[in-house]
């Protein structure tokens, strides 16, 4: 298998030019294998039944629908998703053999992704609670407990999560790192193609620097195949679908809230607005009437 592609430059010096395309197949096959393996494993395990802990105090005051994602957040997610899918399709489908003019679509989608990401950064800093995405020691413990529980049905139920479960946070952060790698290198690579913004300059960086740029871009890309495939797979799994719906509708119902979330850590009570920053959550807060005033 070709992991790295190297070539002799015009002076006969060996330079790195990017990842081996075999890695694309590897990512595709590994993703498929994971999905199939997971499905089989779940079937063998007999499905998931989340042992919901007893609802905690204060549940009586909860609304029927608990808002989880604001419209802005959902819009970001889906626009970003569309951009990401376009990027992956335009990047790898031609490599896998179906050819079409992909370059312009790819960089336009890349810019769209960049725009959504920038918007998301501004929005999350200014209007969302960054803290809710912070991975604390408790999150890690919770994550391990969840893992143990899923591996061993007899294990004690994992503690309920805050607004975002540990695995979601982790996924987000990995995607942030990988996407940042892809976007940064992608921007550099745009300097080598014709766009309306500038005249291309192949020699802006050294051979070696370009090689690393292509390598990082390629590795980010194939990583995203796996990350996106896994994300979509879980999004459509029956036991996770309520979360997916929340990304469509914006809310989850009270039952799911109580079953999966710890109101201590994600307080959506009526007095939530007053307790801003104490582990309560941005979306709800942001939409509270007193914040709009």
């Amino acid at each position, binding site marked *: 298998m070709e992991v790295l592609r190297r070539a002799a430059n015009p002076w006969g010096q060996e330079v790195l030019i990017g990842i081996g395309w075999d890695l694309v197949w590897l990512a595709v096959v590994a993703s498929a294998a994971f999905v199939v393996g997971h499905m089989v494993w779940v079937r063998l395990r007999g499905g998931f039944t989340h042992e919901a802990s007893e609802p905690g105090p204060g549940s009586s005051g909860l609304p029927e629908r608990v808002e989880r994602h604001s419209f802005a957040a959902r819009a970001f997610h889906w626009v970003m998703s569309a951009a990401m899918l376009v990027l992956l399709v335009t990047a790898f489908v031609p490599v896998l053999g179906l050819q079409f003019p992909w370059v312009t679509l790819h960089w336009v989608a890349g810019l769209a992704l960049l725009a959504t990401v920038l918007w998301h950064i501004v929005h999350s800093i200014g209007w969302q609670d960054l803290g809710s995405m912070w991975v604390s020691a408790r999150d890690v413990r919770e994550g391990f407990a969840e893992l143990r529980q899923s591996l061993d049905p007899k294990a004690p139920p994992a503690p309920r999560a805050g607004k975002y479960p540990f695995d979601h946070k982790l996924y987000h952060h990995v995607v942030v790192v990988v996407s940042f790698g892809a976007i940064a290198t992608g921007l550099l690579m745009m300097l080598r193609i*014709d766009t309306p913004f500038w005249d291309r300059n192949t020699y802006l960086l050294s051979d070696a620097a370009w090689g690393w740029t292509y390598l990082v871009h390629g590795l980010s890309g194939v990583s995203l195949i796996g990350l996106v495939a896994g994300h979509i797979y879980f999004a459509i799994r029956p036991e996770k679908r309520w979360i997916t719906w929340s990304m469509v509708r914006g809310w989850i119902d009270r039952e799911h809230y109580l079953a999966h979330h710890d109101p201590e850590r994600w307080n959506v009570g009526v007095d939530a607005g007053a307790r801003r920053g104490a582990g309560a959550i941005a979306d709800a807060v942001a939409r509270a009437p007193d914040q709009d005033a």
Partner: protein
Amino acid sequence: MATIRDMMPAFELFQPATVEDAVALLAEHGREAWALAGGLDSMDWFKDRIKRPRVVIDLGGIPDLTGIQERGEGLDIGAMTSLSAVAADERVRSRFQLLADAASQVATPQIRNQGTLGGNVSQDTRCWYYRSGWPCYRAGGNTCYASAPQAMNREHCILGASRCVAVNPSDTAPALVALDATMDVRNRRGTRTVAAEDYFVGPAIDITRMTALKPGDLLTSIRVPADWAGARFYFEKVRDRGSWDFALVTVAAAFRTAGGRIDQARVVVNGVAAYPVRLHDVERLVTGAPASEETAQAAGDLAVQGARPLKYNGYKLALMRNLVRRAVRSAA
């Protein structure tokens, strides 16, 4: 590994006598196989040790691939028919002078005797960076050396660039596109027919290939339909010297006129993109228009809209514009 050129490495040579055998061999060896027609492009690659197929399938011994058959007023030309045979064929000359003109301007008499129509349309680009064996996009790398700010690119493209800026070097390709020819491509699964216009592939779609041929494919025949038989044709190839030279820009055009008016038109330009560029907008503009100097001027101006020159090939815009004008003028 040090580089050495001009010394052909060994390969396994097959000389099938039938198309079936050739197709079977191509299928068997896949990406490691190379279909050898006249060899004028292939030998350069082999001698430079840049393209190193393990297996070479010489098509020269397949009688079915050679010769010109009539199909009504149209012609089926075997892919291995020599360019001189195409240029000299009375049926080609009387019905499709455009193709005869194009074939007769390829390189030199010896090359036309050895070179084939199928090879001429399927040949690789002559970009000197690519031909130097540099790891450019077309060679599977990640760089276009020819479009760098200081690069030497007078012979490169002004249209259809997508990272790669190479041009198609074929003289007969634009003529065949203008004549609405089709290509019969065989592989193990059967025969497919590809319109000439679709046979040539730009870098936006496939940066490593010039044609629709994929591993396992064999171009068997070029069919020129009767549609343009006996039309008014214009072919002009502009090059640095009178023979043994690829075009800077070539125009191939076909017109049907009546009463000083252009009823139908095909205008195709080569040497400006990685594929022969059919100028649909120009064809629309001139169709129904009088074959006048005004029409020619407008056609030329329209032809180069959207063209984007590199550092050293700005002249190609003027050249392409002027050749399109001449082609339209010739319909008068």
